[in-house]
């Protein structure tokens, strides 16, 4: 863009060229709205394809809104020459036999859960992916390992979650190298929230929990594509979250042992899969402690069912 040739920030160029900027800006917005409207009318594979939109285009968009995406002094953004080109072909999921009008959400049907306790954070997720009434997969990995001491959960669009969290991993690593210390959970979640906020209203679907341990102790933040970012002690996200809340709320105490907390998380997800049609598969359990995260267990829901229901007989 012209302003880069002149080595001045976009905002200064924009203020110096009000008319040209305004025309370009409004034309871009009209084009964007048109694109997002047409995409949202298409079916599953196209929902995935919208994630495969050329991200260099998206980067330009964020520039045109005056956010210096590539130029924050913290160095957190991509450099202008650093075009992120991410094209996922819609190879996952079924073909869109359901017709063009059905807007199929991948992974809102899910249950993910995380809570803090004295020994860190427990993260428990199910592993079912549904497309309408079709179970697309029972073995989805809904916990993304950002780095050895940070975890992110996945709810909403699978591509959105995994892409942005991998991008977050890149930013966290750069932060670590620049500042010679690990990034805090607050800062990592803030980076993610700021990144997706630039795309607010453009159809991103992501509800993630960033969990980790930093010098302030255990950290748990809920970040979503609406721009919410909240710190908390307990979050459950997805269609089965209400059932999970019921179990965790009644069993959560600060002085749980690691074993008890894992069992609580496992039980909560199991109950959610029992009642919610869109959750199931296996329960993946992680524990985040001061040394980092550990994968505690992966158990099939049916096995848990026998384990819990057997004594009742």
């Amino acid at each position, binding site marked *: 863009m012209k302003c880069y040739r002149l080595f001045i920030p976009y905002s200064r160029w924009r203020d110096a060229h009000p008319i040209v900027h305004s025309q370009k800006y409004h034309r871009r917005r009209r084009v964007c709205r048109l694109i997002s409207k047409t995409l949202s009318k298409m079916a599953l594979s196209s929902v995935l394809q919208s994630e495969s939109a050329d991200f260099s285009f998206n980067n330009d968009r964020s520039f045109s809104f005056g956010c210096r995406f590539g130029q*924050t002094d913290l160095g957190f953004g991509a450099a202008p020459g650093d075009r992120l080109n991410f094209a996922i072909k819609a190879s996952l999921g079924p073909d869109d036999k359901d017709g063009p009008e059905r807007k199929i959400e991948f992974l809102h049907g899910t249950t993910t859960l995380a809570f803090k306790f004295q020994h860190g954070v427990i993260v428990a997720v199910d592993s079912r992916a549904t497309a309408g009434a079709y179970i697309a997969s029972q073995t989805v990995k809904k916990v993304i390992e950002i780095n050895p001491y940070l975890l992110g959960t996945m709810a909403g669009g699978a591509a959105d979650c995994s892409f942005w969290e991998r991008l977050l991993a890149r930013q966290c690593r750069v932060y670590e190298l620049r500042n010679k210390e690990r*990034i*805090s959970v607050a800062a990592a979640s803030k980076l993610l929230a700021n990144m997706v906020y630039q795309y607010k209203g453009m159809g991103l679907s992501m509800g993630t929990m960033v969990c980790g341990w930093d010098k302030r102790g255990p950290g748990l933040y809920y970040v979503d594509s609406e721009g919410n970012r909240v710190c908390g002690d307990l979050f459950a996200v997805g269609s089965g979250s209400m059932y999970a809340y019921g179990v965790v709320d009644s069993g959560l105490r600060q002085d749980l042992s690691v074993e008890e907390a894992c069992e609580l998380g496992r039980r909560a997800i199991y109950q959610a899969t029992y009642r919610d049609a869109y959750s199931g598969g296996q329960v993946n359990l992680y524990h985040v402690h001061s040394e980092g995260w550990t994968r505690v267990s992966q158990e099939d829901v049916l096995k848990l069912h026998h384990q819990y229901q057997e004594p009742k007989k």
Partner: protein
Amino acid sequence: IYDRAITVFSPDGHLFQVEYAQEAVKKGSTAVGIRGKDIVVLGVEKKSVAKLQEERTVRKICALDDHVCMAFAGLTADARIVINRARVECQSHRLTVEDPVTVEYITRHIATLKQRYTQSNGRRPFGISALIVGFDSDGTPRLYQTDPSGTYHAWKANAIGRSAKTVREFLEKNYTEESIATDNEAIKLAIKALLEVVQSGGKNIELAVIRRNQSLKLLESKEIETLVTEIEKEKEEEAEKKKQKKST
């Protein structure tokens, strides 16, 4: 206008504009910084103020945040720009990272800014050297110095500006563990260092301190005067002792 590069290499590998900028720094008034154990001290030589001028507006020591401050030597106008950018960056960092800046971070930011100006079209380097002092959130005191080329180093004690060499030599001789043992001692060391080069004593010295978990404090001229008289008394006592030793 933006096409001509001003800072280009000379045949023998020097960046002359940067070196000229360093010359400009050497013409500025002296600033000295000392890192104590629980205190960091900044002292500057105050240029004599004209009769009608308001003294308050001639400030060479500026707070960048609650826990960091800096003094500079060189072109005051350039310094103003750098200080503004640094202040904004301190708050930006608080917003995105939810933590106050470390002294090293803000120094690195200022140094990167300066370096950018040595490698841009149509711009000249900043003509200032800065002494940045403060405490990190874990309580360690820090002192950094930057110069127009964009490099930065950590120091235990340093001086910049006019006669910086003399002051630095004085500090090298007198900076010992005992000389910075208490806060007062550290302040007195800074004053002593400045008195080496400042003409008329306490009136032309401006001093600022940061103590751990406290914000920047500018010492009033009365306090400086008392400390100066203390120092002069100590000097006399030293001279007396030496005389007695010689006579015996």
